[in-house]
């Protein structure tokens, strides 16, 4: 039963991704990004990463994207200017991307045979396991991320404060 599901959500995610790239209005892009995230969350479930799937929805699609949309609204960013000023991206963008993608795809293909198939439930990790390794093996990174968050707060304060005294 996984294959159709996978194909479906893979298609949705790609479609949303494409629309993110082609949409002229930031809001539309944001919404399509949310679409991508949602579908990816489903794929996480297929891969048996329930907790991550949940976090994906809550943190990403929830918190972060809301922040984005909030800012878009705040600055009421309209549709962007039609003409870009970057000749390199216009000239080399598409070719480079195709080469890039082809390269990755080719490499993955060379690797594919040694890869197993994904079966639902072949491996499921709940919050428990995750939490345990977070507080044992990954204790230090976990603590260090707090510094990251601290910096984020500081940054917001420094940059968004009314004016420097």
């Amino acid at each position, binding site marked *: 039963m996984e294959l159709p599901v996978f194909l479906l959500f893979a298609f949705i995610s790609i479609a949303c991704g494409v629309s993110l790239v082609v949409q002229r209005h930031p809001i539309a892009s944001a919404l399509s990004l949310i679409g991508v995230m949602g579908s990816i969350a489903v794929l996480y479930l297929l891969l048996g990463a329930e907790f991550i799937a949940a976090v994906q929805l809550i943190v990403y699609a929830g918190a972060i994207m809301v922040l984005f949309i909030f800012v878009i609204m705040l600055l009421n960013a309209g549709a962007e200017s039609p003409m870009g000023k970057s000749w390199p991206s216009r000239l080399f963008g598409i070719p480079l991307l195709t080469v890039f993608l082809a390269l990755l795809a080719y490499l993955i293909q060379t690797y594919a045979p040694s890869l197993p198939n994904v079966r639902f439930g072949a491996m499921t990790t709940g919050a428990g396991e995750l939490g345990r390794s977070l507080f044992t093996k990954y204790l230090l990174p976990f603590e260090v991320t707090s510094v*990251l968050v*601290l*910096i984020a707060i500081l940054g917001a304060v*420094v940059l968004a404060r009314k*004016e*420097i005294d």
Partner: protein
Amino acid sequence: MPTNALPAPEEMLRFLPEMLLVLFAIGLMVWEAFHDDPSERPGMPAVAIIAIGLAALATIFVGANPGLAFRRMLVVDGFTTFFRLLTLSVGALTVLTANPFLRKRHAESGEFYSLLLLSLVGQSLMAASNELMMVFLGIEISSISSYILAGYLRDNKFANEAALKYFLLGSFATGFLLYGIAWTYGLTGVTNLSDIAAVLGNPDIAPNAMMMGAAAAMILAGLCFKISAAPFQVWAPDVYQGSPSPVSAFLSAAPKAAAFATILRLFFTAFDPLADRWLPLLGAVALLTMIIGNCAALWQTDVKRILGYSSIANAGYVLVAVAAHSTLGISAVLFYLAVYSIMNFGAFAVVSLRDETDVKDFDGLARRNPGLAALMTVFLASLIGLPLTAGFFGKFYIFKSAIDAELYWLAGLGLLASAIAAYYYLRIIMAMYTKPAAEGSEPLPTPALSVQAVLWIGAAAVLGIGMFPSALLDWATKSSALLR
């Protein structure tokens, strides 16, 4: 798996420097929060200095007994200690230079110093991390705080632009880095550097080499961005020009050094088995970087921008020593990074005293402020690589290691490139000494004591190392033994 997670105390200690920095950073913010009148908190730079000093002491203390920590997430060895101290001292210099700079612009705040301390945390983590995870986090901590610092003068549109460029491109590059990490993880199944080395080194379990190479390539790309190596160097001049001078000085020294530390760590331990794949590439990158940096600098008229390009070129020199792929090379890298941080910082510190940073604005500086001009000349001479300055020995050791590794073309072209570099440094010197001062330019106010301290210490170090490099070199050589 053992249920009690708490690591042993000595492992805790190996994280002490970072802990101290974080604590003081928080302390600073809290303290500022309680004194919102700027006049009541003159002591912040002092606090920051104390924090750095303590961290340095801690570093030396824990450096005494090297070892791993936190399930081999961290490694504390001579290498780590060297870079921790290096970045810390750069941080100290930054504090000293930034204090008067910010006061002059009524922009001093506790956050600035806290951010500085936190970014130092990131850099010393980069130096110490033994895990892809930690590498990633370290880089992010260092970078994100750097983004903020770059845009710290938020009413200055150039500062904004610098911050935005730095931020967007940085995250973009990080994307590749992360992708590389993902593949590495997927292919080897491990994330600890030593384990990766073990896997790659063992032909039985070694994964698909092509894909592994690609993974390493993406990581290298991400790191090359951080050290502003070609073709990822484009951001550097813009950012260094736009950011506040002290921050530019900091950015061109500390994060770069840390990134080099990471490159060495990753590629000399984890990816060492792939050496035949990345070595030639690195050589080419080094060459390109030197050429681009030096040639493009010839056209610049803004001193900060010149220094930006020069920092690119210097990254190129260091990469030459990295490409030498030898203990000699590593020690040369360490030596040069230390030297470069000092002389480059010195130059930026002088620049930070001027509001206008065009070369023209340095005309006749020697007449108006001989001391300052002389100091600037010392730093520039060192950047040129004149004998009896630290820079000379830095280049000497680098190219010596290259020739030792039989990279004759790289060495030869590198030497020529460094000769080209002399031109744009000379332009500044000539402007200071031979041009008459611009109309109505009054003698500069004598710089604040802290900056003077930075300049004099820097100059003394440049000349001292320039005459007696042995001590520093010995230290670098000792530190260059990587804990595998």
